């Protein structure tokens, strides 16, 4: 119980804040509850398959295979695989972090994991079709080309900004 309270203290505090706001400003309070509910349903409907696939990935893909395809020295092939994995995803970016954790645990290179995160954030295929429908093809394609370049630059920048020790610590975080 104590451990539960400790882990969920921020969440519980937020609920209290939401209730207080609900009493002070009923409009905003009610609206926030309905948005939270809608988002919760939306998220909880995409999240189960992502985590099941994560579990299967963790159990069935051994370290040697993951290292061979996305580890250090996997070259262009590794980048492409990371990119496609991220683009084929669905769901919010924060669902990508645990998946990235499993990739790190299995020996993917940090660079490729950042490519994966970048692809998950901006080049998800279902999102792109939706973007094109709302904002037009020219806008979407221009942004896509820029994003692909940007994902590479961000991955390089982030990796280069970490020294050997700091990189090792990230791997230790995900053991």
């Amino acid at each position, binding site marked *: 119980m104590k451990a539960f309270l400790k882990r*969920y203290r921020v969440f519980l505090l937020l609920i209290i804040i939401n209730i207080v*706001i609900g009493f002070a400003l009923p409009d905003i309070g009610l609206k926030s509850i309905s948005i939270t509910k809608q988002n919760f349903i939306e998220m909880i409907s995409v999240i189960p*398959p992502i*985590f099941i696939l994560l579990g299967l990935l963790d159990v069935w893909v051994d370290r040697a295979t993951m290292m061979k395809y996305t580890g250090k020295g996997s070259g262009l092939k590794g980048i492409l695989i990371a990119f496609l994995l991220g683009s084929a995803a*669905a769901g919010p970016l924060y669902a990508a972090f645990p998946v990235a954790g499993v990739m790190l645990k299995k020996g993917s290179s940090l660079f490729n994991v950042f490519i994966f995160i970048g692809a998950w954030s901006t080049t998800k295929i279902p999102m792109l079709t939706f973007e094109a429908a709302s904002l037009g093809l020219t806008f979407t394609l221009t942004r896509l080309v820029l994003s692909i370049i940007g994902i590479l630059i961000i991955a390089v920048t982030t990796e280069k900004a970490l020294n050997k020790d700091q990189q090792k610590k990230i791997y230790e975080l995900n053991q």
Partner: protein
Amino acid sequence: MFTYILYGLAGTGLAMSFFKDRNKTKMALKKAWKSFENILPQFLSILIIIGLALAILSPETITNLLGMRSGIWGVLGAALIGSITLIPGFVAFPLAAALLKNGAGYMQIAAFVSTLMMVGIVTLPLEIKTFGKRATIIRNISAFVFSMIAAFVIGVVL
């Protein structure tokens, strides 16, 4: 639609895994639950924060804030709103389209969409769990800078 494909994949994967090795499948499901439970407290907190943020910063408010404004301040404002808020795509893109109609330029819209997807201030605690503080902060700052540059390029092209 895409969610169904994902469910199909997960279902097929589970069935194949179960057929090959029951124990490993059990382990996979345990791992799946453990990873989910691991992020659950933050996940729930994020949902409430988004709910509150969007109730206060409603699509109408965002339109008012960004619709009229243009130029560099508009771009910066759009990028900041995109970084702070976490709006699912099916809400964000129609909102962006509405912003365009209400007078926002392509530059502002590009900044908003790009930071919305790449920069996550609310989700920083979750990202730090996987990547640590330093990498997380650097990734988010680079993504922010990139979004601004992309916005200017799109503003020039379109």
